[in-house]
């Protein structure tokens, strides 16, 4: 085959701005500068940057709610397949898809004209011909885009009299142990396929067949879905075709209370929304942050809420009495500990790198006042990471090697890393909030545990000589700030109220001080 010649296809270079929620275009104060191009949307004139599509101009000025969409997602390439976002452009012969039509200078756009609304009603009627009316059992109901847009634009009746299409094999098909597919509900927007193709770059989802029989399936049937961001598929699926097994049938979404926080499962510090009802967390969802996590979040972080409601988590202070740990009050516990601490020859406090910046600084400042000759150090201990220099990316998107949230922030308080990862003093106080590793120790090491611990972790400790456990708060129960691996400082406030008798660091230290 030596005769083949390579054909070079020359594509015109157009830089489309994929990421959304940009700020409005700055109008330069210099009168000599070239003026920005302008587009008129619904009678108002907006400046835009060259390369923006009509949808992206709307997103710049927060009027994107006016334009319904299924296939368009700001974090993914444009497809233009659902025809829901069509708008009327003056002097254009037909309606234009606002997601894929680049805005031009002097363009006049109508998003709510009679023609546009009629078109949307038609699109909705076609989408609903084969959509089952199983909203009562569907987990997406309440946050479903098909429901919302049907309420706004949909026809109240349907002309479709035939039987609805049923995919016999994939009505409830487990694509992996995390995601369930119900193909009957799918509206074929292909957001999920584009996500695996362009964001995770694993290409583990494909659309089989064409037209009426078009069907979503895993590219490798035996392997199923294998990317590490499967939860995102269920977030942006506009209908209930893809549902997350962990949240499936757990709660209806309209009962959930939503509060912003930071994920503490790795050093990336993804912005999350904590969905809870009556202080029980049901799921985490990502929030858009262009500098940190864009729209996404990994499955490991998404399932990290389970440790909060772990029944084995210790939520009240425990004191050693006759070789067993018993629940007690914080004053009694601190009183008995401080007797031991005074007689000890050397004491060290190991701060886990999952502590907040404020906690680490407070401990460094106040603990020497409480216990004399105390040595302080920090310890990470996840994936063989000791300092923030060991941290590296695990894939091309978000996941990091360091599985604690605040290694950089704790380093900046001036603490030093624990030598050889091993505690050597007579009594060691281990402070961690559930994510940092546990340092090496001798078999008869005297220990005081502080923060978030579970009974499993205590059983697995090499030493059984535990003097007491001071229950603390986990990340989403406390206030503070994390410095992520890129050096971005992010503050967060409590999303839920702690369910037990755990106390913040400040109140424990002040109780300790008031003993004397």
């Amino acid at each position: 085959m030596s005769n083949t010649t390579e054909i070079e296809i020359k594509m015109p270079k157009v830089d489309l701005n994929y990421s959304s929620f940009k700020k409005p275009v700055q109008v330069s104060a210099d009168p000599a500068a070239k003026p920005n191009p302008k587009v008129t949307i619904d009678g108002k004139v907006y400046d835009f940057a060259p390369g923006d599509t009509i949808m992206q101009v709307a997103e710049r000025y927060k009027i994107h709610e006016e334009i319904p969409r299924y296939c368009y997602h700001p974090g993914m390439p444009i497809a233009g397949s659902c025809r829901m976002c069509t708008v009327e452009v003056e002097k254009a012969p037909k309606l234009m898809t606002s997601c894929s039509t680049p805005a031009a200078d002097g363009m006049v756009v109508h998003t709510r004209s009679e023609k546009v609304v009629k078109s949307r009603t038609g699109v909705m009627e076609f989408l609903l011909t084969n959509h089952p009316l199983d909203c009562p059992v569907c987990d997406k109901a309440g946050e479903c885009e098909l429901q919302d847009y049907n309420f706004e634009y949909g026809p109240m009746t349907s002309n479709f009299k035939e039987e609805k299409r049923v995919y016999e094999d994939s009505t409830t098909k487990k694509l992996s142990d995390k995601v369930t597919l119900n193909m009957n509900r799918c509206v074929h927007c292909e957001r999920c396929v584009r996500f695996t193709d362009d964001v995770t770059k694993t290409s583990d989802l494909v659309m089989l067949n064409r037209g009426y029989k078009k069907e979503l399936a895993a590219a490798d049937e035996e392997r199923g879905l294998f990317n590490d961001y499967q939860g995102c598929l269920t977030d942006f699926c506009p209908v209930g075709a893809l549902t997350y097994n962990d949240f499936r049938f757990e709660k209806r979404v309209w009962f959930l209370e939503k509060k912003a926080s930071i994920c503490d499962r790795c050093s990336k510090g993804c912005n999350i929304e904590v969905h809870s009802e009556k202080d029980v967390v049901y799921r985490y969802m990502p929030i858009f942050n262009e500098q940190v996590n864009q729209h996404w979040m990994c499955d490991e972080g998404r399932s990290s809420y389970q440790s909060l409601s772990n029944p084995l988590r210790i939520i009240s202070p425990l004191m050693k009495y006759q070789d067993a740990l018993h629940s007690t009050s914080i004053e009694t516990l601190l009183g008995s500990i401080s007797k031991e601490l005074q007689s000890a020859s050397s004491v060290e406090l190991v701060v886990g790198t999952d502590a907040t910046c404020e906690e680490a600084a407070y401990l460094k400042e106040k603990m020497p006042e409480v216990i004399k000759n105390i040595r302080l150090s920090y310890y990470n201990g996840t994936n063989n990471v000791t300092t923030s220099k060991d941290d590296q990316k695990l894939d091309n998107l978000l996941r990091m090697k360091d599985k604690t949230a605040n290694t950089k922030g704790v380093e900046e308080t001036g603490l030093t890393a624990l030598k050889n990862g091993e505690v050597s003093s007579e009594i060691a106080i281990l402070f961690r909030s559930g994510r940092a590793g546990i340092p090496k120790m001798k078999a008869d090491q005297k220990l005081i545990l502080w923060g978030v611990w579970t009974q499993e972790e205590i059983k697995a400790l090499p030493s059984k000589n535990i003097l007491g456990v001071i229950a603390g708060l986990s990340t989403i129960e406390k206030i503070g700030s994390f410095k992520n691996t890129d050096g971005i400082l992010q503050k967060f406030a409590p999303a839920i109220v702690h369910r037990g008798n755990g106390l913040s660091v400040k109140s424990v230290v002040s109780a300790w001080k008031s003993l004397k």
Partner: protein
Amino acid sequence: MGTVNISRKYTATQKTYLWAIFIGMKITFKRLLQGFFLRKNNTIQYPEERRDYSQRFRGMHFISVDKNKTENCTACYLCQTVCPAECIHIIADERDEDNNPDGVKKEKRPLSFDIDALRCCFCGFCEEACPKDAIKLSRNYELAVTTRDDAIYDLDFLKRDVKGRG
């Protein structure tokens, strides 16, 4: 919240209560004489005789079942959402495929379905909201129980046999 004192001005006849007593006794003697001379009964022998209430009377709840004795409820939480007295508590679960003869229509089931009848105000909103006609209010008005726990109806109790609307 302070106390509000309301002063009412009564007339002399109202203060003595005599007129009110007279009206009450008039009805009593009227019924007595009717019973003596016209043989007219104004009361019923309750457990043996029962009053016929309206077809739309709202009494004790039940959950309708299909021919396989599977509850029609799909645990959609609409009744729990609409309930003004917050007396319905549902926990949802996935139905086993073996116990799911209707395929995807009944993939979700209530693991537990509790109605606290002490809180219930019998407004019938749950019946109205139910998309599967699963929860209904029967015409049974005998709700007396011996313990408070008996007043919390669980799924097995709600699935009892009720003919028509009871």
